[in-house]
């Protein structure tokens, strides 16, 4: 039921929302989170963010995250799209959509999906700074804590 995609192209929230809701009249609301590239990291200006992933495992882990959300909330569909490659500040990185008859289910599932995507899906970011150096982003304890509040061990 979930739409899972890894792509290099920009993410079009309008088109994805339309695809998720097309022909349906049983949805009460769609929650979403659209992540975008900030132009600073640790107080330094960046020129780009490069995303690498583990093809195969990525799709498996996103499908598992979506299945878990569908088991926990009465979802009528969800969408997980993550970009890879070189992205510029302001560009889209990730989109989560969750549709449900009820707004709280839609919003909670959205928060759950993005928290888990950040701790369980095999993506890695590298920041390119204006000074010319590059650095792999370190995992944040805050992300593990965010995932842990849903009562599943973050790995």
């Amino acid at each position, binding site marked *: 039921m979930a739409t899972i995609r890894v792509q290099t192209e920009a993410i079009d929230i309008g088109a994805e929302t339309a695809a998720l809701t097309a022909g349906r009249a049983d949805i009460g609301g769609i929650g979403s989170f659209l992540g975008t590239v900030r132009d600073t990291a640790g107080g330094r200006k960046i020129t780009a963010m490069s995303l690498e992933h583990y093809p195969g495992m990525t799709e498996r882990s996103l499908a598992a995250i979506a299945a878990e959300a569908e088991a926990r909330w009465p979802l009528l569909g969800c969408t997980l799209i993550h970009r890879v490659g070189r992205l510029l500040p302001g560009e889209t990185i990730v989109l989560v959509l969750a549709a449900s008859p009820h707004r709280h289910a839609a919003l909670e599932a959205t928060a759950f999906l993005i928290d888990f*995507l950040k701790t369980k*899906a095999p993506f890695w970011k590298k920041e390119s700074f204006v000074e010319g150096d590059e650095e792999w982003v370190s995992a944040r304890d805050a992300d593990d804590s965010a995932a842990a509040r849903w009562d599943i061990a973050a790995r």
Partner: protein
Amino acid sequence: MSGAGIKVLYFAWLREKIGVAEEDIELAPGIATVAALTEWLSASSPRHEAAFAAGKTVRCAVNQDFAAPDAPIRAGDEVAFFPPVTGG
């Protein structure tokens, strides 16, 4: 992959430090867990040693599922090593 071989993949800074994205390894006798494989790979070159020296910050997946150090490794497996994930 044939015989006692496994495929090993590296991502992010592990890939950069080791200098290859993927290698086919003949499983030596006694290499039956992630921990044993990690030790064997570390000893295989100074680049591997430097990469795996990061220790606790190296994660592993066996056949595309996250795997703990005591997880078994078998011929034909796809084993990946990478830093903690930072997507989203």
